């Protein structure tokens, strides 16, 4: 039974996330083309490439450093709406991890809850508005439940991933009410929200790391 991500593992998590999003770039861009302005993939990969460079130049020393670096890169370089919001999302992960030895269920739950609160405070999207919030909110709920149920790390990550994926998929039936998708109306129906999918990819990258260790 695993209790939390080690510093090496938060690094693997972030590395894996970068690789996954880069692979998904064409798909994400296409989704943003159907519901927005088609720059989502570029916005992501530009910032993520810089994260990778920064992590090479300044290798992470602390549990929270990979998140911290990713946060700063998104806040420094990303142009779109999603960029600064993701920057603040990763920042909550960095805060929860900072100085710690392990990133356990408690930290994960806390970071996700704070991330949700921050993104909603800043972007004022509600659940159902067809944004990344539609993936984050169910993940946050699932984590709260997992924590109070005493789930282990793998179980908590699994629950979050499953909830985020479900939420992300569900956005394909939603009419946009925040961001650019609010301008295209019904035309976006059938295509999922790329921001929400990216949140799911983030938990999926965590799942891979947890699986690797426990497997």
């Amino acid at each position, binding site marked *: 039974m695993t209790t939390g991500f080690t510093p090496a593992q938060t690094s693997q998590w972030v590395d894996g996330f970068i690789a996954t999003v880069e692979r998904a770039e064409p798909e994400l861009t296409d989704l943003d083309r159907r519901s927005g302005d088609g720059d989502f993939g570029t916005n992501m990969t530009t910032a993520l490439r810089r994260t990778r460079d920064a992590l090479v130049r300044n290798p992470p020393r602390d549990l929270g450093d990979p998140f911290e670096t990713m946060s700063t890169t998104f806040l*420094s370089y990303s142009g779109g709406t999603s960029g600064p919001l993701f920057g603040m999302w990763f920042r909550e992960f960095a805060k929860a991890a900072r100085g710690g030895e392990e990133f356990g269920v408690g930290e994960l739950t806390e970071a996700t809850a704070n991330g949700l609160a921050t993104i909603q405070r800043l972007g004022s999207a509600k659940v159902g508005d067809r944004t990344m919030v539609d993936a984050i909110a169910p993940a946050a709920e699932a984590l709260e439940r997992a924590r109070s149920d005493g789930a282990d790390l793998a179980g908590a990550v699994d629950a979050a991933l499953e909830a985020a994926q479900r939420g992300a998929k569900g956005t394909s039936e939603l009419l946009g009410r925040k961001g650019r998708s609010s301008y295209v109306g019904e035309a976006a129906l059938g295509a999922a929200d790329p921001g929400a999918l990216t949140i799911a990819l983030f938990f999926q990258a965590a799942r891979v790391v947890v699986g690797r260790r426990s497997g």
Partner: protein
Amino acid sequence: MRRQFVNDPADLVNEALEGFEAAQRGRIRWNRDPSYVVRADSGRRRGKVALVSGGGSGHEPLHVGYVGPGMLDAAVPGAVFASPTAIQIQAASRAADSGGGVVHIVKNYTGDVLNFRIAAELLEDDGIRAEAVFVDDDVASDTGDGEGPGRRGTAAVIAVEKLCGAAAERGDDLDEIVALGRRITSGARTFSVALAAGAHPGQGRPSFDLADDEIEFGVGIHGERARQRHPFAPVRDLVPEMVDRVRDPLGLGRGEHVIAIVNGLGSTHDLELYAIHRELVQVLAKEGIVIDRALVGTYLTSLDMAGCSITLIRSDDDLVDLWDAPVSTPALTW
């Protein structure tokens, strides 16, 4: 096909900032990365509230041209028509802060609002208090339903920067300046029209085309079309209609006082701007509205758009004093 004096268009903003810094001969410092422009003497007067503004580039002289004594302490330029990032804003605010806190003057666009809000949260962790004045004066974007991103910010931001800058110089504290900025904003409205859109650096075509006999009526400053088109008309017909749009929501009546800004949006000639101001003077005189002060010229552009805006700002003795206070920046000095 429109062309510009550039190298690689992607480098234009940074190359311009480098040239801008060189021309200012040490009065202003440009920090390349993260990119911001700051008064060379900033931080000297302990406790003075710092004023920081920013937004997409392509609106020059806004905002970098307004950095200097009596106006901004720092300006944060994004890419052309794109918000600066939160990290840029945070860095600029840190550089500008003299211990009195920071007032962010922000034109109301989703990206700018988001990044300035984030910067304020980052600054909180740095132990620096940052409060925002969101400027939303563009009546053409008023949907009236309270939904959506709200009215856009445009030329009233110049007055907010000038007046709050003067208040900061005289020693007003952060809360006072924020209250002042919000008071100015709530009494300010702008209406913009265009005869031709601007063209992005390196792009052959203007961002929209317009028939010869049309005026884009209520245009934005990022190449957004207006909701309305208006038949081409002489300024004696155009200006009264523009004044109607700004006066009505302000509820300006006989005997009330205003500060007026007649602004060129890029390639509109001074001859035209002054001819427009003449019409404005006549219209307001007829309605018994007193122009306390007027600014006529090219102060906020949308690249090389052929267009102009009229801004009216409810005025009073305090605002006039602040307006008359000395200011010494690259683009506004008296």
